[in-house]
């Protein structure tokens, strides 16, 4: 059975019409299943766990990156795929990276059921599908290898699994979420670049399988949604998640 997990923010009245439209479209496509609305009293994790036990065929995250972040850890290693119906423009980079731009397109993609087995990043015990980000000021990056990296200007450090439109990279750098490696991107903030069209003026890119990030004064943000303290050991879980993707995905 298809399990539609509605994030708690969709309990607001302003989403009623949009949700009704989605439900109509889902019914038209013959994809109906069970709708599970999360709330303060009913968290997404527990719901997904229960539905997987009951034999869910597909888990559909209806919401944003945060909704996805709460689900992916429970689907690691499972054959049950994750599908996404993105609601709103903000904090939906993951859906866009997977080629899912709109609600209508998401329904069609769910119907087409094009599956891809994607890597996941793992920061201590927390999984991420897109990126882990932290300020580089005061951050120590230990490559668990024979070398260390020091950033001499302030900026951000991203560990990327899935290409993110907000982080512009040189065209010759390809980010593939199924290659078993992550990309460590250090972007320096420069006054000269503030009004520049290209944000890749001062970037460093390293392909990694493991990195330890530590900054006692800053939090590591996973998929733009979940904050966690450091030190964090980040590794890659190769092709650990089955995902329904769109044809226009960026990999």
């Amino acid at each position, binding site marked *: 059975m298809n399990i539609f997990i509605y994030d708690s923010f969709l309990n607001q009245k302003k989403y009623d019409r949009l949700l009704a439209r989605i439900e109509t479209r889902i019914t038209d496509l013959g994809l109906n299943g069970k709708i599970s609305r999360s709330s303060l009293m009913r968290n997404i994790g527990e719901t997904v766990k229960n539905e997987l036990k009951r034999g869910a065929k597909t888990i559909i995250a209806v919401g944003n990156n945060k909704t996805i972040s709460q689900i992916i850890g429970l689907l690691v290693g499972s054959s049950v795929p994750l599908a996404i119906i993105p609601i709103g423009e903000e904090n939906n980079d993951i859906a866009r990276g997977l080629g899912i731009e709109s609600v209508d397109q998401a329904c069609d993609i769910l119907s087409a059921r094009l599956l891809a087995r994607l890597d996941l990043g793992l920061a201590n015990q927390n999984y991420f599908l897109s990126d882990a980000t932290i300020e580089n000021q005061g951050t120590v990056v230990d490559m668990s*290898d*024979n*070398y*260390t*990296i*020091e*950033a*001499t*200007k302030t*900026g951000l450090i991203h560990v990327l699994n899935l290409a993110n439109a907000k982080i512009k990279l*040189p065209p*010759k*750098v*390809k980010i593939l979420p199924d290659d078993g490696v992550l990309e460590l991107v*250090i972007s*320096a903030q420069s006054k000269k670049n503030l009004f520049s069209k290209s944000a890749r003026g*001062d*970037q*460093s*890119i*390293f*392909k990694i399988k493991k990195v330890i990030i530590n900054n006692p004064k800053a939090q590591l943000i996973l998929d733009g949604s979940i904050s966690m303290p450091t030190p964090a050991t980040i590794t890659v879980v190769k092709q650990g998640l089955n995902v329904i993707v769109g044809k226009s995905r960026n990999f």
Partner: protein
Amino acid sequence: MFNKQAQGGTSSEFETVIGPSVKVKGDFNAQGNIIVEGMVEGSLKTAGSLEVGEKAKVTANVEAREAKIGGEIRGNIKIKGFLEITAAAKIFGDIEAAFISIERGATFNGKCAMPTGVEDIKKINKDKAN
């Protein structure tokens, strides 16, 4: 340098970019192509191509399949294929490469060896001894 057909490369994608605001310390080994625009201290090895930008400062022994050097390198350079040294380059160390091009204006203080030439000289010396 990164022309696939001319140099027989297999990929024009970069695995590693060391930007101007980053300093790498230690033994850096890679398989793919590398661009260095920042600082490297230690050693730098890749099975792919290496490009050292004009503002880069590398204090390391360098090994690569092919390389284009525009910045400062203090250390020995060993290139299997073609080494291109541009006008802005400053090299303080020995060079070993199969093919070399040095642009007018470049600074180079060190010895230069081309493996095929060395082998030929050894053969000539052996013949003379016999």
